[in-house]
């Protein structure tokens, strides 16, 4: 699947996706949004962008959660339009992208069930891209084995459960471990699938997924300081499809504090500048923000090549970043606390 044959099956969708990408908010739009005083101004400014009148039918006192839902709804409609029009192997590729959201939904439902929340309250909170038929049945399970046998064996995530079926009960700690184990298996599977497609797709996607894997390794390490997660368990959660594998991951598994993580990052040219100067002081960006910035840069470079599937993945990630930006600005505007309003991450 190369330049010569790509357009036969995927040319229309690639053109459509690039059209959607052209509608992503630019720096001038963000400057307008930042100057809003109330949420209604925000709605007005968004009407002149690609979003159009998506908030037109909402009742008058707008809240940030309503804006969030509507932004997500637009993204989901666009993504599902592309998914429905696609053929193999693009349809498998787009399905792979949704598995990440499915994992998040499953974990959300399990956690909610543990806290005795009604399943009907939780379903609307799930991400629509990750919905699957058996969602309503998750509350009947008490252990991961039951969960698997009853509900998950029919979903596309079934092969990812190999590593985490154990007889322990579902509890707070284990839920996070399950989430990370599932995500690790999913990332590695996605990476393998992209490698089999070949061509520019492999180049673009493998770089994007390697960054995602490394980012998760760093975040898991940093978040596990001070918890009961043992080093061996932690090492089992690192996805192995990134640049850190195998040496960086081995060192990360041994790390005890933030400084040691920084030392590991110093070995890698791409990650050293992210850790330099990251911190929580005023005027500094947090490490999370820097990871988002780097992700945006990688996704932008995916659009530099033509005839590959990476544009669909990159478009989704950039749109999500845009949603996060708009919600951040909306929160600052709604709470009238504009000190850090400029900490959104500009895309164009």
């Amino acid at each position, binding site marked *: 699947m190369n*330049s010569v044959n790509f*357009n036969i099956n995927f040319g*229309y969708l*690639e*053109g459509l996706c*690039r*059209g959607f990408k*052209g509608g992503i908010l630019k720096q001038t739009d963000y400057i307008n949004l930042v100057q809003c005083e109330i949420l209604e101004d925000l709605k007005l400014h968004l009407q002149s962008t690609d979003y159009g009148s998506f908030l037109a039918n909402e009742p008058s006192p707008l809240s940030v959660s309503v804006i969030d839902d509507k932004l997500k709804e637009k993204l989901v409609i666009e993504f599902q339009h592309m998914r429905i029009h696609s053929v193999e192997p693009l349809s498998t590729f787009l399905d792979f992208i949704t598995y990440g959201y499915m994992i998040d939904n499953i974990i959300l439902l399990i956690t909610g069930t543990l806290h005795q929340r009604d399943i009907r309250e939780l379903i609307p909170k799930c991400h629509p891209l990750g919905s699957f038929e058996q969602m309503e049945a998750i509350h009947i399970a008490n252990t991961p084995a039951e969960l698997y046998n009853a509900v998950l064996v029919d979903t596309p995530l079934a092969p990812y459960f190999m590593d985490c079926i154990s007889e322990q009960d579902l509890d707070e700690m284990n839920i996070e471990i399950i989430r990370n184990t599932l995500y690790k298996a999913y990332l590695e599977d996605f990476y393998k699938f992209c490698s089999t497609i070949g061509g520019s797709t492999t180049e673009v996607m493998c770089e994007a997924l390697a960054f995602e894997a490394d980012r998760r390794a760093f975040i898991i390490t940093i978040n596990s300081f001070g918890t009961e997660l043992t080093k061996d368990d932690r090492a089992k959660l690192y996805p192995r499809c990134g640049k850190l594998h195998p040496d960086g991951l081995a060192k990360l598994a041994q790390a005890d504090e933030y400084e040691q993580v920084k030392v590991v990052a110093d070995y890698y040219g791409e990650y050293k500048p992210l850790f330099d100067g990251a911190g929580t002081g005023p005027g500094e960006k947090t490490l999370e923000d820097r990871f988002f910035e780097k992700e945006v840069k990688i996704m932008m470079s995916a659009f530099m090549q033509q005839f590959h599937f990476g544009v669909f993945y990159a478009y989704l990630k950039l749109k999500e970043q845009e949603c996060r930006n708009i919600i951040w600005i909306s929160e600052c505007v709604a709470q009238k606390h504009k000190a850090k309003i400029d900490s959104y991450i500009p895309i164009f």
Partner: protein
Amino acid sequence: MSYGSMYGGVLGIFLTIWTITGLYYILSGQGYRYDIGWFLEQTPPYMWANIGIGLAISLSVVGAAWGILTTGASIIGGGVKAPRIKTKNLISIIFCEAVAIYGIILAIVISNLLEKYDETTTNIKIKQYNYYSGYAMFGAGLTVGISNLVCGISVGIVGSGAALADAQNSSLFVKILIVEIFASAIGLFGVIVGILQISKVKMGDKVAD
């Protein structure tokens, strides 16, 4: 079982049979039976000429079709969010179409030069001219066909890039069009060489001098 391995398998079987037959003939002293000269002498020039005409038009059309589909899909996709590109980008389609026109022009020119000659003639010169003409027409058809095939594909891919770039930024279209003009020129080179190849063709009974 992928298509690649199936084609490879068939080719492998074919090559094995061919090698075994060839070795059998050589080793049993019947090597003279594998006679390429006989084949070339016995086939009339009409076959070569007509295959040349067929290749000229068919390969050109394949190239043009491939180019149009590549460009067309991108124009349609890009035109959803940027409808202004629809009309301007039809130029790319026209460039691809031109490739098919080159093919048909040459096919018509070659077929006009086809003439009957008396195969039982003893005049060596007439025979030579007619055989030469057959081969020349085949060569010209092949030249034009293959060069238009790749030219069409190339114009198509560039046209697709032009459509998508135009959808994002309309000042880019004219610049990329220049690249497309260069891509289109290589098809023209094929036509020129094809015309040169058939310029000396003389078929028929009355070969002068």
